[in-house]
C-alpha cells in the first residue's frame, strides 16, 4: 500500500476518484491530462490502476459492458491505527 501511495500519479488518480467516483479508464486519462497536465499513456495509467487495485485502494466493477473504477480508502485506516493522532508535545511550561 505504501508503494502504491509513493507515486504522485497514483495519488492524483485517487484525488480524481475522490472528486468523482466510478470512472472509466478513458475518463481518468482525460482528467489527468487536462487538469493535471500529465502526459502518461493510457497503458501507463492502466498499470497504475493495477497497482492501486492490488493495494486494495481501487476497486473495479463491471456494469454491463463497461468497467468503472471506485476508490476504497479503508486500507488507509491501518495507517491511522498504527500511528494514531497525537498532538505534538510535551509543551514547555
Amino acid at each position, binding site marked *: 500500500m505504501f508503494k502504491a501511495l509513493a507515486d504522485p500519479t497514483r495519488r492524483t488518480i485517487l484525488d480524481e476518484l475522490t472528486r468523482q467516483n466510478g470512472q472509466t*479508464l478513458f475518463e481518468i486519462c482525460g482528467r489527468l491530462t487536462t*487538469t493535471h497536465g500529465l502526459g502518461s499513456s493510457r497503458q501507463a495509467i492502466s498499470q497504475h490502476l493495477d497497482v492501486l487495485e492490488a493495494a486494495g485502494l481501487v476497486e473495479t466493477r463491471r456494469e454491463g*459492458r463497461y468497467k468503472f473504477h471506485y476508490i476504497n480508502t479503508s486500507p488507509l485506516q491501518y495507517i491511522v491505527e498504527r500511528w494514531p493522532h497525537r498532538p505534538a508535545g510535551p509543551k514547555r511550561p
Partner: protein
Amino acid sequence: MRINLTSVFVNDQERALRFYTDILGFEKKHDVPLGEDRWLTVVSPKDPEGTNLLLEPSSHPAVKPFREALVADGIPFASFDVDDVKAEYDRLRGLGVRFTQEPVEMGPVVTAVLDDTCGNLIQIAQRPL
C-alpha cells in the same frame, strides 16, 4: 482534401437509424439497399451537405473484439459537437440514454460519453466559443 464520410459500426442498421435520428437528432441522407445490408448514412440538420455518417454493419469478425475492448475502457468511437453539453446530457438522459461519463470540463472543452445502444460509445463535446 476534406472529410466527406466517416462511419460507426452498428449491430442493427434499422435500430441504429432510429437512435441516430429520433434520439440524437440527425437526418437520414442516403439509404441504398445492398443485399442484406444498406448504404445508410445520416447528416446533421445543421449541415445537410456536410460530413455523412455511415451506419455500417458490424458483421465482420474483427469488429466485436475491437469494440468490446474500447467500450470496456470507456473509449468513445466518435465525437460530435453540441452547443451545450449539459443541456444535451439532460435532454438525452430524459430519453433514457445511458452515459458512462457525465459532463466534465476537460481543459477548454466540456465532454460527456454516451452509449449509442448499437455497440458504441459516443462523445459529445462543447468547444469554447
